[in-house]
């Protein structure tokens, strides 16, 4: 079991968050330059939720993601190149260029392609966990969704099903205060999303979603419960989107004071400060991490610009599952 006191492990958590931020910032400019087709949904400010949860999972555990999935993917082990190629529609992308930003995933790395329908991943995660349980596998599913999902019918059906059958699902609610532009308190009567778990008879917990170590600890304990047959668990991770809902959203609904407050609680900068203070890393090590992330991203961009697009022959591939052999 990974120890939270391990300096290398903590440095790795930071490195992964920096890689996500670097990727998202780089993609933001590629979009502004007009180099990237379509819109994109980014996760600057929410890196700790993806990294903390995925660090607590095994490589063969699965995650389900949403339309805001770049961070989840990088946290689960997909590479910048796989993602960027997919965002550009290249056949070398993680979904052969047919998915795009909202549907990134890689089954070999334990990530089902992103489910862009709000709350759509919740029943799906319950189904995956049921399959694991019936086959007596000990894998768990971490199901990511936002605060906008918890008033959807699919959410209630999915969590209820997981509850009655004690399925190994960690329901991870990234509560970033807004479902697109709607504040969560306008659409929910209770203050804590984690309390919803009680209605279905399982455990719910609210955690500082900008503290990667707190997220990791909560996810690790949730994964243990799930593997011991005591699932599911609902984790409400309090975080903030430091960017628009999509690239076309100027987020005028976020008050300036609120934005500043959350920037001061930035998951990367607060963790950098903690690691420096505790002598785990010095300035030079952090700067090296940032430089390496930038270099890795820039290299990926160079390759993506000349990556091949799908051909006509690819039109009917990946449409049907191969026939099962008896």
């Amino acid at each position, binding site marked *: 079991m990974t120890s939270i006191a391990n300096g290398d492990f903590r440095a790795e958590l930071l490195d992964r968050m920096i890689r996500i931020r670097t990727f998202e910032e780089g993609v933001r400019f590629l*979009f502004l330059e007009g180099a990237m087709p379509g819109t994109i949904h980014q996760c600057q400010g929410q890196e700790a939720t993806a990294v903390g949860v995925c660090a607590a999972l095994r490589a063969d555990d699965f995650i389900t993601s949403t339309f805001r999935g770049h961070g989840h993917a990088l946290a689960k082990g997909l590479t910048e190149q796989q993602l960027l190629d997919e965002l550009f529609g290249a056949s070398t992308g993680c979904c052969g260029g047919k998915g795009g930003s909202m549907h990134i995933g890689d089954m070999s790395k334990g990530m089902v392609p992103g489910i862009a329908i709000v709350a759509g991943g919740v029943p799906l995660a319950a189904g995956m966990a049921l399959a694991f349980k019936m086959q007596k596998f000990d894998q768990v599913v971490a199901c990511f969704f936002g605060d906008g999902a918890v008033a959807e019918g699919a959410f209630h059906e999915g969590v209820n099903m997981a509850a009655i059958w004690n399925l190994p699902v960690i329901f991870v609610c990234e509560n970033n205060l807004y479902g697109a532009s709607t504040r969560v308190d306008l659409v929910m009567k209770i203050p804590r999303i984690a309390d919803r778990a009680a209605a279905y008879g399982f455990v719910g917990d609210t955690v500082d979603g900008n503290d990667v170590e707190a997220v990791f600890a909560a996810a690790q304990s949730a994964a243990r419960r799930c593997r011991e047959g005591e699932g599911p668990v609902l984790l409400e991770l309090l975080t903030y989107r430091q960017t628009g809902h999509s690239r*076309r959203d*100027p987020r005028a609904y976020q008050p300036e004071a609120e934005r500043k407050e959350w920037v001061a609680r930035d998951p990367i900068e607060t963790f950098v400060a903690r690691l420096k203070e505790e002598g785990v890393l010095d300035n030079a090590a952090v700067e090296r991490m940032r430089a390496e992330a930038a270099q890795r991203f820039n290299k990926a961009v160079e390759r993506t610009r000349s990556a091949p697009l799908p051909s006509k022959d690819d039109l009917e591939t990946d449409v049907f599952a191969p026939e099962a052999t008896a």
Partner: protein
Amino acid sequence: MPDLAATEGSDILVKRWLIPVGSPVKRGQPLLEVETDKATMEVESVATGVLAETRARPDVKVEVGEVIATIETLP
């Protein structure tokens, strides 16, 4: 002009330039204000350098992808 409208690819109205021609500009710094079919927003510079020229006038709609400014970068 980046593709910022809610209706993908629709024209975008230039409201005003936030930096005068000849001024230094940083990547990520707001360069101009535009109005889309849904909202008013700032467009950030994609490069660091000097704003050499603006081609889009205020209160005129611009097609997505059109060159609206030139930024001279240091060699």
